[in-house]
């Protein structure tokens, strides 16, 4: 056995493993090096170094009772557990723990779809249910609801939402934690708790009303370490009649400010789903050597220089794809309204129609949709970005997501582009830059996400990405921005930037942690929250 949790004796570890085997069956406890290696984070920036965060073993229950038995045994022997649902959190830590030597509690086998109601619009699922599974179920039963999926469809509704994951349709559904309703949790003492209306025996509305009565505690289980979620409800969107997208382009750098305000209005009043911003001028760099030279000049180009270049070539600075869902009539009218509103306000703005679909779609029609998640179809095509291709003949072995939240304004986009680009340039990383547009999954904020390269064979690449990551977190904090989610290697650093009033929030969380999980057995370090006996080892 290569790895033992720190401070745990071999005798205790072996005794716990014996109890885990008794609970779930020998076949579902993994202790061989070969099996445990499959829990490594495939995108770890610490791959193959002494700092890599490794599991000591894994145990895979099939029922809630088995989860309880595992938690009780872990408490008895003080074994740190790290729960995963489908374990596909690559870029944010994969299936590896925050605390080296933890036993991964792999919930993949608990994969039952317990209920889907297409009249009230919800699903109740277990942790191992992947987006692909729920989609198939809905299709087979011809239910009239859509799932809001993250880009990769192989992840789970529960794991994704518990990491505050995000998707692609309407704002209310894109926030996957925000659109959950009701949880069942195995607490660190092995007890089962249901939240919201689920606390009412015989409740008829567990998946309809979130808050029940009293404080709303669900938030503790997202990016937290207060329990193991064994069931969760999610609200689903009704299948609309039609989808139409339309593209709006604006010529100048500073037009992004008015553009974002209009698009925010359209979105917050409920007329559009996710807006997709991009930069035609940024894309033009590939074929415009003069533009590349301008961008690469010492100190970078001014906004006026870029505007002059764009005007001379007829290339707009910014574009946004607006996505309309609903009855065919109102979708068309809403697109017309958006054109009128933006056209009257931003000189030089131009418009073109995008895709148009009617639902339900045939299999052939679905196959022809490029961004399937925009119409609620889980897919894996996002890996087109990053996979080996003619343009990318030497792909990396993954990436670290740096995902800072900035305000939903054009000013914040322009400011953060330059602030982050400076750091990336300093470290020689080919990410971000002055044409970067925000990810817009989160309803009320932007995320200026970049993927920093990692390698399983070249430790220098990893060292550079880690150093850049550390620096960019600091730069973000200086500007009042911080990450919404983090790979375990940086969880302490990120948590450290949320330091208002001498870390009052973290101190509060850790007070709760001590009360709820005194032995610190659940996901130590997740969310930057450590049990008392491990606080000295904090990385930040």
């Amino acid at each position, binding site marked *: 056995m290569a790895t033992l949790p720190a401070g745990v004796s071999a005798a205790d570890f072996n005794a716990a493993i014996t109890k885990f085997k008794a609970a779930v069956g020998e076949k*579902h406890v*993994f202790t061989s090096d070969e*099996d445990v290696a*499959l*829990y490594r984070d*495939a*995108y770890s920036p610490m791959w193959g170094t002494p700092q890599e965060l490794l599991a000591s073993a*894994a145990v*895979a229950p099939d029922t809630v009772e088995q989860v309880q038995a595992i938690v009780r045994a872990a408490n008895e022997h003080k074994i740190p557990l790290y729960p995963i649902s*489908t*374990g*596909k959190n*690559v870029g944010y830590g*994969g*299936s590896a723990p925050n605390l080296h030597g933890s036993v991964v509690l*792999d919930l*993949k*086998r608990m994969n039952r779809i317990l209920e889907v109601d297409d009249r009230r619009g919800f699903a109740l699922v277990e942790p191992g249910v992947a987006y*692909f599974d729920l989609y198939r179920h809905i299709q087979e039963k011809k239910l009239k609801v859509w799932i809001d999926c993250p880009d990769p*469809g*192989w992840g789970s509704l529960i794991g994704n939402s518990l990491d505050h994951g995000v998707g692609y349709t309407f704002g209310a559904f894109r926030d996957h934690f925000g659109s959950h309703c009701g949880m069942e949790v195995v607490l660190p003492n092995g007890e089962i708790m249901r939240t919201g209306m689920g606390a009412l025996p015989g409740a008829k509305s567990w998946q309809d009303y979130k808050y029940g009565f009293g404080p709303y505690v669900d938030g503790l289980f997202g990016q937290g370490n207060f329990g193991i979620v064994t069931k969760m409800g999610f609200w689903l969107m009704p299948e609309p009649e039609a989808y139409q997208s339309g593209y709006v382009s604006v010529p100048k750098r500073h037009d992004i400010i008015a553009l974002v305000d209009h698009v925010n209005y359209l979105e917050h009043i409920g007329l559009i789903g996710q807006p997709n911003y991009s930069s035609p001028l940024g894309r033009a760099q590939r074929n415009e050597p003069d533009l590349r030279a301008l961008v690469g000049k010492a100190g970078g180009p001014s906004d006026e220089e870029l505007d002059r270049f764009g005007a001379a070539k007829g290339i707009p600075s910014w574009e946004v794809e607006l996505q309309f869902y609903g009855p065919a009539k109102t979708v068309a009218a809403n697109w017309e309204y958006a054109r009128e509103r933006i056209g009257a306000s931003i000189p030089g703005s131009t418009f073109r129609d995008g895709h148009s679909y009617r639902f339900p779609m045939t299999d052939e029609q679905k*196959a*022809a949709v*490029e*961004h399937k998640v925009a119409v609620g179809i889980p*897919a*894996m*095509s*996002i*890996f*087109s*970005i*990053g*996979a*080996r*291709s*003619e343009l*990318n*003949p030497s*792909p*990396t*072995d*993954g*990436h670290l997501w740096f995902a800072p939240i900035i305000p939903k304004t054009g000013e914040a986009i322009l400011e953060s582009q330059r602030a982050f680009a400076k750091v990336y340039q300093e470290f020689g990383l080919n990410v971000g830059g002055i044409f970067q547009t925000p990810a817009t999954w989160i309803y009320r904020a932007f995320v200026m996400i970049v993927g920093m390269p990692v390698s399983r064979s070249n430790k220098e690449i990893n060292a550079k990405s880690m150093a850049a990551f550390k620096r960019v977190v600091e730069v973000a904090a200086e500007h009042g921005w911080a990450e919404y989610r983090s790979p375990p290697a940086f969880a302490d650093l990120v948590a450290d930037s949320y330091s208002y009033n001498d870390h009052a929030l973290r101190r509060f969380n850790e007070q709760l942690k001590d009360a709820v999980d005194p032995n610190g057995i659940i996901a130590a370090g997740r969310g930057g929250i450590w049990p008392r006996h491990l606080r000295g080892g904090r990385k930040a």
Partner: protein
Amino acid sequence: MKMRVLALFALMGIATTGFAAAPGKAQQIAEGEKLYKYWCSGCHGPGIGQNGAPYLPGETALRAKYKGAVPGLLHERTDLTPEFVKLFVRQGITIMPFFRKTEIDDQQLDAIAAYLTRNSKTK
């Protein structure tokens, strides 16, 4: 039960090597095809990719790697061996991570390998 049936199929497969796939082998291949479609075809199946990519990422990658020497779609290949298939599933490659045994267990991996090597000249 499942174990015994599979063992039986394996025996039958061995007994008929060199002939058309035996029923046991055929069943394993059919099972492998189902598993392949579930676990692999999201990237390695036919279909379009994102950002204008004409193929899904797995096919794009293998086309770029082999430059037409072998088909870009794994299920059309005739040069794969079971060991080769298993190596990539358990070790991953570039941005493709490896798969845990709770996702694809060893028997299921054998079935996927059987499916992908069903037309292989070297087995």
